[in-house]
């Protein structure tokens, strides 16, 4: 639950992490649209360029203070270099603020045709442990072991969030995705915890599905998932949420929220797209839809609905789309069109 307070001008202050690559471009577009909708928000720019604290990747204190004070942040993509010393900054952010659940809805966009119609999936990913524990060792030369960590505590927390979220959005089915046939103890713990939590929500139908079957069925036909909330350990959530994004047309269209007990950070699922950075080609829709999720979380439902309507109308009309959606519009032209619809 959002517990931010308005400032003296009657606005909520929101921390803004513009991010790398295309981040600044898409952040600008989103700020303009949100301003045009007369949303009571003041942005507080936040620099999260990582520092090393006692040899560990950390976020500058000023950024931590800003986000803790405001309780909410909107974040552009942060690049995660392969094979360099730093731990992923995305990961560091999730750990710093204990953002234990990653919420990723995917909805087909009218006007943007893909081989899949009427997709409306809701996926919740455990965000703090699992395969992302970062515990790895070279036990002998050429032999690496990577530890996947599953705890009852973290599992319980994300599972309870899933059931609560199902209530919030009016779905009465929760399905856990796992691979307990192979990882009998670790995924087994997640699955057994799910069964226990499910007993606390008797009005919600609960079941479980093996990761292979989810991949198979969702790719065959995603529509049967439209009445469910899916919840799963970290890596499976990473993979399946991108799969869902693929069903509706790619990363340029999917939002996400990183939810914690105190703080929530809303972000686009896609990366920093260094290949098109600075060229005004980036699609800001994912960050925009993330900001709409954020507005709803903050109780600003009116503005959220207005922006959503204008966005979907612009996409459906198909005249001012960015390159990734087969259009020719620049980031700004697309944003301007949304603003004129507002």
């Amino acid at each position, binding site marked *: 639950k959002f517990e931010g307070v308005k400032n003296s001008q009657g606005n909520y202050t929101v921390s803004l992490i513009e991010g790398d690559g295309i981040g600044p471009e898409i952040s600008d577009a989103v700020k303009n649209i949100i301003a045009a909708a007369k949303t009571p928000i003041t942005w507080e720019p936040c620099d999260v360029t990582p520092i090393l604290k006692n040899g560990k990747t950390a976020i500058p204190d000023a950024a931590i203070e800003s986000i803790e004070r405001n309780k909410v942040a909107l974040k552009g993509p942060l690049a*995660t*270099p*392969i*094979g360099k010393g730093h731990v*992923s900054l995305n*990961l560091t952010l999730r750990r710093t603020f204990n953002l234990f659940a990653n919420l990723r809805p995917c909805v087909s966009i009218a006007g943007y045709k*893909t*081989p*899949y119609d009427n997709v409306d999936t809701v996926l919740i990913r455990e965000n703090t442990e699992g*395969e*992302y524990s*970062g515990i*790895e*060792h*070279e036990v002998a*030369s*050429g*032999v*690496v*072991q*990577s*530890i*996947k*960590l*599953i*705890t*009852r*505590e973290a599992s319980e927390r994300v599972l309870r969030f899933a059931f609560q979220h199902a209530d919030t959005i009016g779905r009465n089915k929760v399905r856990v995705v796992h*691979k307990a*046939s*192979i*990882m*009998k*103890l*670790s*995924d*087994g*713990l997640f*699955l057994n915890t799910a069964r226990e939590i499910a007993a606390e929500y008797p009005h919600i139908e609960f079941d479980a599905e093996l*990761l*292979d*079957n989810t*991949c*198979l*069925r*969702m*790719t*065959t036909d995603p529509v049967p998932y439209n009445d469910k909330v899916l919840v799963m350990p970290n*890596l499976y959530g*990473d*993979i*399946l*949420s*991108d*799969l869902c*994004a*693929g*069903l509706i*047309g*790619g990363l340029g269209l999917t939002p996400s929220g990183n939810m914690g007990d105190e703080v929530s950070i809303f972000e686009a699922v896609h990366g920093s797209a260094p290949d098109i950075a600075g060229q005004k080609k980036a699609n800001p829709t994912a960050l925009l839809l993330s900001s709409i999720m954020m507005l709803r979380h903050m109780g600003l439902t009116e503005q959220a609905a207005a922006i959503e309507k204008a966005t979907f109308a612009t996409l459906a009309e198909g005249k001012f789309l960015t390159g990734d959606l087969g259009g020719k519009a620049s980031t700004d032209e697309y944003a301007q069109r949304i603003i004129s619809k507002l």
Partner: protein
Amino acid sequence: GAVSPVKTGGKYTVTLIPGDGIGAEVAESVKTVFRAENAPIQWEEMATSETPASRSDSLFNDSVNSLTRNKIGLKGILHTPISGDVSFNVAMRQALDIYASVSMIRNIPGYKTRHDGVDMVIIRENTEGEYSGLEHQSVPGVVESLKIITRKQSERISRFAFDFAKANNRKKVTCIHKANIMKLSDGLFRSAFHSISKGYSGLTVDDMIVDNASMQCVGRPQQFDVLVTPNLYGNVLSNIGAALVGGPGVVPGCNMGDDIAIFEPGCRHVGLDIQGKDQANPTAMLLSGVLMLRHLGLHDHADYIEKAVYGVIADGKTLTRDMGGEASTVEFTRAILDKLEVVHKA
């Protein structure tokens, strides 16, 4: 690898493990079609099972011994219960060191799916990774599961993938990993792949993180050619891939060691829900059998059976339920027998 299967009286002896679920039904279909084709195969059938009622270590050991002797097998899927011992499917791969699992994901001519032009091969490391089975509960409520990646196996599977690509006129090999997060383990897999790639020329070599690959697979699968992956990501991608071309009932595959080859559907599902209902699609098992015939150099027999199977599917009149038809396994098999006569006359 160099396989030297056993040939006696003009016939190859092949270990046949129908497996659980729909295994018996689709194996019956294969036996019927191979008999009609007069393929020189002598089946050595093993009733290995993993369902709680019929799981038996001695039957499992028999099948391992049979495969060790014959060097070649055709296998359905063993059911892996969630609670219970380590999977027989996994144990068998480890016991025989069949380290490469191959799924052939390709549109079937005349059978329309959401995407056309899909033709990719997923080559999956089969002996380590997340399937190591090493797990422990350090304190109550805290479980650690070990994923093991070794340079040796990573190099071996990469070499297999490049050799496969060369031998099959493929153009591109893509390594799938999550090295941005699992920097040491997947990092090792990725760097082994790239170092092995240096020994091969004429192929496009690249890599992609597994989440992006999954997204690309449902969006633009035509971009993929040969994929090489650690264990778990191969499981994920072969299921996504199978769904693109018609499901687990149509995707063939094989498992290769240095001197043993086991042919098996490329998207491993037991199909308990349709067991004994005469509904299963035997195509995946039949096409796996076709791959096996080619492996033995029996190309004429392989061609006839393949043409008959594809012919029946292209006609579109006798299809099993998973392909949108109403035919039973037996009816579909009978249609293939009829078609076999036609292709032999043509």
